[in-house]
Every structure is written in C-alpha cells, then in structure tokens.
C-alpha cells in the first residue's frame, strides 16, 4: 500500500468521523447524552492541545489547569468589564499565552520530573491567587460567566466542542507534517541531539506551549460558559490538569488521534461508572489507568500503531555495499583495544 493512498484514506476517515459527530444532535435529543458527548469532545480538544507539549515535545505538563482556568476566568472578567463575548474569549486566549510565556520561560529551564513539578506549582499558585482575591475573582464564592450562545441549548455547546476538536486536530496534522513537528519530536527524543543540529530547544518548546495554552484557554471558556458559574476549585484544580494529561496518555501521547480515542473511552466510561458505582467510580477510573500504564505504556493508539507498523526488524548486517576499493587488501589486524 502506498503512503499517499494510506494518507488519503486516513483523511477521509477523519473527515467522515467529524461530519458524523456534527450530525449526532439530529438523532440524539436527550440533553444528558449530549452533555456527556460535550465532555467527550471538550476533553478530546484539551487532550489534543496538551499533546502538542506533553506528547510531541515530550514535556510532561501537569499544570494545564492554569490555562484552562485563565480561559474560564478571562471570559468572566473581561465580559464583566464590558467586552463582548467573542472579544472576551479572544482576550482570555491572549492572557493564557502571556501566562504560558511566563511559565515556560521558568519551567523549560528544568528537565524531566522537575519540569512536571514546576508546572503543578504554577497551576496551584494561580488557584490560590484566585481563591484569595475576592474583589477580583469572587474568591471561593465564585463568579458569573456569560452565556456564549443566544440559546442556552446544549446543542450549541456540543457542536462548538466538536469544531474545537476538529480545529486542534487539523493544526496538529499541519504541525506534524512540517519542520516544526520534526523539531518538537527531536526535542522529545533527545534535546542534546536536537541542539547539535541547530534546534533552539527553548524556543520550540515555548512555541508548542503557546499554541497549547491558547486552545486550552478556549476550551476553558467554553466549559465555564456551560456552567454559567465558576469557582477556583473547579476550573483551576489539579483534577483538570491530570484529566487532560490522562486522556492523552490513555489514547497515546504523541499520536495524532490518541487523545480523541482516550477521551471517548475515559469520559464515556467515567459517566457509565458514575451511574453504576456512584462514589466508587473513581476506584474504577484508577484501576483503568493502572492497567493502561502496566500493559499499554504507549497508550491505546501508540501500542496498536507499533504492533502494525514496526513488526519487521531492521537489517543488522546491511553492509552489502562494497567497502571502498582501497581498503580491500587491508589486513584486518588485532582487535581494537589490544
């Protein structure tokens, strides 16, 4: 099968999937089901945005709630100041980018687990600030968020989430096929090697984080607008940070559709378990994550792709080509190191 034909089929499948997703409200009328599906697509979009930093660039961010919360509070605060909804959303994305620049400038000096810990710290600081500035954010009491759509119908939210997911997926495809994508993956695989071929690792990590933070903020604004009312422990909590990362890792960090698959499985099963097991559903959730980490460390999509694509092993004695002629008569003497 040629690569081009395969790519064409992949593209057709993905487009068909999103068209079908947009048509769901024609068939499904139950608000509850649409609400679950909204959550599925919202977290798919957030997982895809996280994937740019955590998956492709390999920088394990566990503080994406910071950008999610900035998006949510940004919409509330800017519209309180009189900005129209769309402007408030755009401004909150800009603020998220500013926060990402600040957080990235500090955190990207650290590598591995130290980076992950510093991202948690920044998100927690933001949560505590939001809790302790009652005059600005309403503190623990919370703040009202405007409705983004003219009707308070779940259908608008659901469709927006689907479109957001499609947009982030489209941008991911574009990045992965461009030089930027190769650079991000190179940084993930080995930062020293990337730098040895002229990649300014700090700059490219920051680019990935800026893109990721803008879309995460957009997702946060959408989520906040559905609830119409937010508190710091809801939109700036560790739960959001870890859920976003888990969605991507379950499906497969650093794969194109991994976060989408992860969100479909995790968010829908979480809903089912919530109904059946009530408070014990978190236990099932935990077991699911443990099983994935143990048996599918590359995530569902990552593991499947590896099984399909790389089942052949490379030639280990590939030097069929003749060595340069002048060396043919060279006596091969004592082994190295003698």
């Amino acid at each position, binding site marked *: 099968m040629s690569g081009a034909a395969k790519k064409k089929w992949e593209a057709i499948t993905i487009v068909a999937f999103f068209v079908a997703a947009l048509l769901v409200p024609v068939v499904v009328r139950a608000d509850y089901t649409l609400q679950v599906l909204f959550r599925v697509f919202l977290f798919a979009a957030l997982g895809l945005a996280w994937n740019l930093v955590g998956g492709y660039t390999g920088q394990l961010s566990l503080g994406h709630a910071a950008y999610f919360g900035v998006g949510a509070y940004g919409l509330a605060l800017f519209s309180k100041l009189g900005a129209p909804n769309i402007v408030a959303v755009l401004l909150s994305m800009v603020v998220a980018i500013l926060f990402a620049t600040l957080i990235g400038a500090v955190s990207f000096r650290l590598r591995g687990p130290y980076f992950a810990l510093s991202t948690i710290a920044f998100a927690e600081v933001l949560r505590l600030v939001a809790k302790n500035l009652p005059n600005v954010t309403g503190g623990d009491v919370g703040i009202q968020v405007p409705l983004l759509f003219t009707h308070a119908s779940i259908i608008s939210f659901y469709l927006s989430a689907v479109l957001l997911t499609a947009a982030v997926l489209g941008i991911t495809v574009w990045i992965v096929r461009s030089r930027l994508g190769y650079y991000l993956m190179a940084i993930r695989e080995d930062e020293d*090697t990337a730098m040895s*071929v002229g990649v300014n690792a700090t700059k490219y990590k920051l680019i990935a984080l800026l893109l990721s933070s803008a879309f995460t903020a957009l997702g946060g604004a959408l989520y906040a607008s559905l609830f119409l009312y937010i508190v710091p422990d809801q939109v700036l909590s560790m739960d959001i940070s870890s859920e976003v990362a888990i969605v991507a890792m379950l499906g497969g960090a650093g794969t194109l559709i991994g976060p989408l698959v992860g969100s479909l499985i995790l968010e829908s099963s979480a809903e089912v378990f919530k109904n059946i097991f009530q408070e014990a559903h978190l236990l099932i959730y935990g077991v699911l994550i443990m099983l994935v980490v143990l048996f599918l460390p590359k995530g569902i999509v990552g593991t499947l792709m590896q099984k399909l694509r790389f089942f052949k092993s490379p030639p280990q004695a590939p030097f069929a080509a003749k060595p340069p002629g002048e*060396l043919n008569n060279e006596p091969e003497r004592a082994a*190295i190191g003698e």
Partner: protein
Amino acid sequence: MALLEVKNISKRFGGLLAINDVSFSVGEKEMAFVVGPNGAGKTTLFNLICSVFHPDRGSIVFNGNDISTISPDRAAKLGIGRTFQIVKPLRNLTVLENVMLGAFLHTSSPAKAAAEAVKVLKFLEMDSAMHFPARGLGLPMLKRLEIARAIATQPKLILLDEVVAGLPTSEALRLAGLLKRLPEWGISAVGGVEHVMQVVMKVADRVIVLDHGSLIAEGTPQEVVHRPEVIEAYLGAKYRKLIHE
C-alpha cells in the same frame, strides 16, 4: 586564515583542570585528529568547540566568529556539526527522519530535507535501512547515523567524538575510508580517537595529542607516533626509554 582557531583555552571542573592552555588550528578541508588516552580531555575539548561548555580562559574563533560563549544550536547554525561518543539517535524516529532533522537546518520543506537526507545516507551506505526506526539499529549503524545527521546540516567543520570506538576493526576501517572522503562535501573534520591508531594513520592529515588536558605533541601521524612524550603518555616512562635505546 584557518577555519577553526583554538587559542589558549582552559576549562576547569572543580578540582580537575580538564583542558589546560590548549591552542591549535584547523584549516579548510583538513582532517585533524585529537588522540590521547582515556581521560585526556578529548570530549571536553569537543564540547568546548561546539559550545556545550564555554572555556574559562582563552577563545575559540570559527570562520571569523568568536564562538567562545554562544549556545550549541547557534554553533550548529554557524556550521559546526558533531557526533556524540555515546550515540544519541532519536530512537522512535526512522533513520531517514533522523537525518532529515539535520537537513532541516537549511530548508523548511520536508520533501527537500528528505531528498538531502537520502543523498547523505547513500554516501554512508546505509540507505537500505532508512525506513526503520533508529532504536532497532546496531552500534555500527548508529555510529554512521551520527555522522549522517551531522553531514546533513552541511557543516564546514564536523567533530567526530570517538567515531570508531567499539567497532570491529573491519568496520572501523571501512568507516575510515568514508571519512577520508569528507572533504568532497567541503567539510573539515576534527576526529577524536583514543587508541584506534590504524584509523588515525589512514585518515588524519594532522594529529594533535592530548594528555591530562595539555597538548603534548602535534604533527603528521608518522611524526607523532615516534615522539617520546606520546609513547610515554600511552605506555608509561619505562617504554619511552626502552624504545629510544
């Protein structure tokens, strides 16, 4: 004017003077080899030239630019390629993608980068493996991959840190034959070798001998191997006397 001029550089790590007042230069299309026993400071010297470390004293001038205090990615952009002694492939990418990464320094088009990478892989006789992930390769191929990635950046100077270490002699000599052709690509090279002297004798135009961080001898390979200081550095003072009697 020389392509690379290293002037009186020193580098200290805590109590260890890793490089002590070393000066030398490398010309266009010249193959210089830095040799010296384990711990002589070869890797430190390479890391100084490609700006991973910065010298405490002295300066490094490359192609007219002072590169003593720049970042490693900047050094790569100026035309300094390098290979790592302990190979550092991008394990989950294919061989082709690994080399494309180097080629991206001069083009943002993946198609052009791939074409350039294939050319380099053909030169290094490893194009048959280009669609396999790098993690499955054995050491001989990984050593070549390091060189391929560096050549793809179209450097003026390439630093080959222990490029034949751990290879069987036959493969080391084959690789030496390929390295000898680097000037065809307009590349000068500074190789670093601990003790595979067959390769040095075959490829090097000039040899620089380091011992305990200091430059103890410099000259053509034939000259250098007979110098008493060099014999002493490798075999000890006893052999210095023995050979010169």
